[in-house]
């Protein structure tokens, strides 16, 4: 496991260090390209290097901020962070806080370089089968390069998907192009063609990828892509292609394909929901051994997440970087009734706003007066963690998901934080959404589940045990329930930001102001809760897609997205 991470580091830092954008024809390397594909060691390290871009996912996506802070999930306490440009509507083609164009095209170029350079791997690898040990070594290396080639194709497809869900139509780069003239002539391919490419690649590599890396070769390769990772990518890509942003005519066949792809994972019977929602995000590099995790980024010991997000009042350090919003807190239903807090008869008490809620609320968000590191959190004005403190949460809430509460920052303790890219709960919700749109809430159409039962399964996770959805919901009602379920279950996991875009509701959700909770402690030690506006947010119709970086549009045939 560590060996794998170190390999990635080595390669990413020295062998194939990044170029500035995909138009570049050379990549700065320690070795020349012709020196890389000469033996197993260098060739395999070039393959592992394709993984390096995965470290961009997750915790520090935008200038130390999570992507959640660019959606209605959270505010970022640092007003100088570039992520604020998303919220103020001041991002442009030359100032995009999450400009991923060069990052992912560099990674795609790495993948293409590896795939082309290793095409003749059987000839390159040292072959001396006269000695048994060498023969075994050769077989091992052949198998490993074959797997790496499939994994590189998976990663190349994943990086294309990351680009397509941001920029819409993008150039599909299947090979290394060095010729300047050809590069200048490259145009953007349709979003649908990109999805077709991703799906076709996944279909081809699923048989070539390993089922698991656990209990293989001393467990040192854990974290590499598996069949399930490719299946999940395919299912999610098809879901995006079926969604309103990309499917304006609501072609039901698209939903049907997305449902089938998600069901392929469900029907395999290999995955299930972890029985500890809070613990699921603190599994470290063992997360790939969990039955819920389909693909996760292996990382290293670190404590920056805790340094950024521990409540401000703890003497071990911390600040309220990712400040969860009241908008998100309000989305958590009441556990006893399964109703949203603003429904009559829900059982919600505004003066005890965190009692009786969906347990995922306090597993994901630190709320006032909840226990954290041995004392109640004081989010009230004047409290140790109050919003009036410098660098404190701006909303009255602190991030809990992913946070390792046990770390002692004064002693600089650290732990591994694994970023889960695909997990089974998301697969179930992808399936539910696609089934509902294709066939309605309770139709099975030959599948083992229907939309309702898939959502119910997520809600009934051990330790969460939310009431199942009421039967007889209309398709529209089920759509709203599924969307809220995604918002709650997948909070802070880089889904909401893209979900509201693909559902084409961002003009509604992202133009609402971000709300926080102003808490006052009364003399009798009870609290007064008042919701207050923290900031207005701006989202305009052209922002459904990112702007193509200005530098790219000036080079040749890459056109700009409308409105930018």
């Amino acid at each position, binding site marked *: 496991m560590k060996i794998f991470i170190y390999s990635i580091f080595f390669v990413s830092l020295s062998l194939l260090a990044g170029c500035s954008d995909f138009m570049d024809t050379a990549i700065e390397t320690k070795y020349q390209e012709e020196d890389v594909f000469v033996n197993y060691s260098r060739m395999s390290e070039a393959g592992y290097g394709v993984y390096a871009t995965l470290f961009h996912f997750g915790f520090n996506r935008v200038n130390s901020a999570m992507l959640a802070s660019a959606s209605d999930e959270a505010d970022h306490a640092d007003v100088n962070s570039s992520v604020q440009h998303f919220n103020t509507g001041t991002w442009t083609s030359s100032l995009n806080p999450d400009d991923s164009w060069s990052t992912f095209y560099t990674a795609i170029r790495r993948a293409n370089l590896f795939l082309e350079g290793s095409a003749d791997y059987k000839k390159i690898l040292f072959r001396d089968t006269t000695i048994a040990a060498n023969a075994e070594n050769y077989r091992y290396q052949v198998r490993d390069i074959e797997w790496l080639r499939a994994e590189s194709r998976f990663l190349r497809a994943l990086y294309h998907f990351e680009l397509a869900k941001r920029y819409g139509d993008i150039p599909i780069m299947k090979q290394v192009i060095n010729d300047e003239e050809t590069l200048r002539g490259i145009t953007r391919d349709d979003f649908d063609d990109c999805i077709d490419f991703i799906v076709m690649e996944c279909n081809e590599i699923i048989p070539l990828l390993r089922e698991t890396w656990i209990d293989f070769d001393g467990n040192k390769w854990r974290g590499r892509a598996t069949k399930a990772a490719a299946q999940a990518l395919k299912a999610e890509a098809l879901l995006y292609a079926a969604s309103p942003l990309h499917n304006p005519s609501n072609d039901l066949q698209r939903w049907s394909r997305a449902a089938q792809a998600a069901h392929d994972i469900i029907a395999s019977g290999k995955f299930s929901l972890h029985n500890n929602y809070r613990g699921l995000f603190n599994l470290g590099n063992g997360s790939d051994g969990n039955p819920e995790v389909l693909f996760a980024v292996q990382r290293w010991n670190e404590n920056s997440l805790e340094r950024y997000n521990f409540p401000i009042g703890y003497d071990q350090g911390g600040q309220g970087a990712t400040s969860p919003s009241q908008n998100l807190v309000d989305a958590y239903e009441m556990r006893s009734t399964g109703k949203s807090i603003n429904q009559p*008869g829900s059982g919600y008490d505004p003066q005890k706003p965190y009692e009786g809620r969906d347990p995922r609320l306090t597993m994901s968000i630190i709320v006032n007066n909840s226990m954290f590191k041995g004392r109640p959190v004081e989010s009230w004005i004047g409290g140790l963690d109050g919003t009036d403190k410098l660098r404190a949460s701006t909303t009255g809430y602190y991030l809990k998901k992913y946070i390792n509460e046990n770390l002692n920052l004064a002693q600089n303790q650290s732990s591994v934080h694994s970023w889960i890219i695909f997990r089974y709960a998301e697969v179930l919700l992808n399936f539910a959404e696609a089934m509902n749109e294709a066939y309605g809430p309770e139709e099975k159409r030959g599948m083992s589940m229907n939309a309702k039962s898939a959502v119910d399964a997520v809600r009934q996770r051990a330790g969460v045990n939310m009431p199942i959805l009421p039967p*007889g919901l209309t398709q529209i009602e089920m759509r709203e329930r599924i969307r809220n379920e995604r918002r709650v279950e997948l909070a802070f996991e880089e889904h909401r930001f893209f979900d509201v875009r693909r559902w084409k509701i961002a003009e509604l959700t992202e133009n609402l102001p971000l709300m926080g909770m102003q808490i006052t402690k009364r003399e009798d030690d009870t609290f007064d809760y008042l*919701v207050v506006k923290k900031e*207005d947010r701006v989202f305009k119709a052209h922002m459904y897609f990112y702007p193509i970086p200005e530098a790219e549009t000036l080079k040749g045939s890459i056109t700009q997205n409308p409105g930018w």
Partner: protein
Amino acid sequence: MVMQRILFILVTAFALSWSACTDKIVFLADEAPEIPVLERYSAKYLWIGPEYKLAIDAVITDKDALKSLQLSVSEWNIEESLSLSGKEYLLRDTFLVTKDANRTKHEVELVVSNEAQGILRVKIPVTDLSATNQIEGYSPDLLPPVITVNAPKVNRFYGLIDAPVPLTVDALITEDVEMTDIYFKVWGENIKGDYFEVEDTWSPSIEEEKQAYHYAKELEIPGGTAGEYQYMIRATDKAGNQAVTGGNLTVGMMDRLYLSDAKNESEVTGQGFDAYASADAWGLGTLLPMQRIGNNLFQLNYYYRDESDENIRFIAFMGSDRPFNSSPRGIKYSLDGDNVLALASGSSEELTTNLQAAEFKLPVSQKGYYTITVDMSARTVKAVPMVVVNPDFTNSSLFPGFSAANPYPYLAIISGGNVVGTSGWSEIENNTSLHKEAEHDFIYSGDFRTTGGVNINFTVPKASLLPNSGWFRLPAGRANMKDTYGDLISAIKPVGASNQGANYGITLTGNTDWHASYDLITYRLRIVKKQ
């Protein structure tokens, strides 16, 4: 230093003389335009009848002429722009808004401009008066009826035998004002696609029943074939508020499936188990847990002897039901219960619960290793020959001196007290050993006797045994021994000896003669009382 000072003086003098020669800088008098005036204002959050409204009342004036007004409350999605004229504007407007779930601070933001380019920007705090309805005596029925379901408490049914499954529905429905109707429905289909639906509508006529009604119904849902059903109870009050509750009902959807190869009931009651302290472990006897690999789909790798006395049955369990109590000392199943299936006579894959018409074999005609897959929805069993391979054979610390072509002649059973490494015990060859079966590769079997509680280990023959290698025992601490369903159990695997203490393997109690067989491919240890 002196030169520097001189240079400084010269430069300063030059600068002063230069500035004296230039024109004067003239600052204009403050000509900022006058701004409009908000003379009186109020913004109120009101509850009026069934609706919530924002009411704004303000007088805006300007010395010369007003030009425009922008009004916004972003959290309520209110945004209005108006063109104005004249010196005074009376802003009096209401907006339909949503009810706040929490007490919320609202402000109305006004931006007013005049013809002189003056801009007034002001936030008017909203006074929350929503606690009291503005219509005196207005008492809306906002609450839906409350449905408390007393039955069904169990919503998952075995339904393995071909008979309807009785279902009892019992619910108390209460309403604070007046209930108008109650609707009950149960619906769904089995895996053959047979649709089933029962519905029932009731409208109360008696006054008491309009506030509280005890709904009870007995019905039957289809059994014999796996199916998934739902039920719902919906109550509606006079104001139109609805409450809906319900749940899923499954028939024949199993949580656990075991393969039993007990020859008879005596091998059920006399099956072996690890009896260490109170943490009894299962799985050393005649019941093998099948791994759940999908929805109602189970799988197991199994060696089939294809002998005349084969007695293969599949035993299903749901929910908290288990084949044993806390340990196999308390057996909770029999070979002819309603949860037992076997291969239908003459069929190549069909399973039946009619044991009178079953043949208790696998659908194959040769001995060997098979991957057995049981689909409890389709009620089928399939046996596919598996590749007979054990990667551990090449591990010399686990299997010293072993190869498929040169197998051990026997496995020694070592019992007694602490057994550490190769010391502390002596092998009594051909006394207590499992001998390789001539007809079945990789299977070792034999008899032994226990007197009281004894600890038992296997080793490879002493001739092959090396320090810390060639020992077979439970692979981990007993507290961690879980079967595919999380129950205490373990396969007996080669793990090498412990250097740290007793090399306990399994423990059997009682003064008993046992017959055991051990499979080096699947690591299955089968122990039963000798008959």
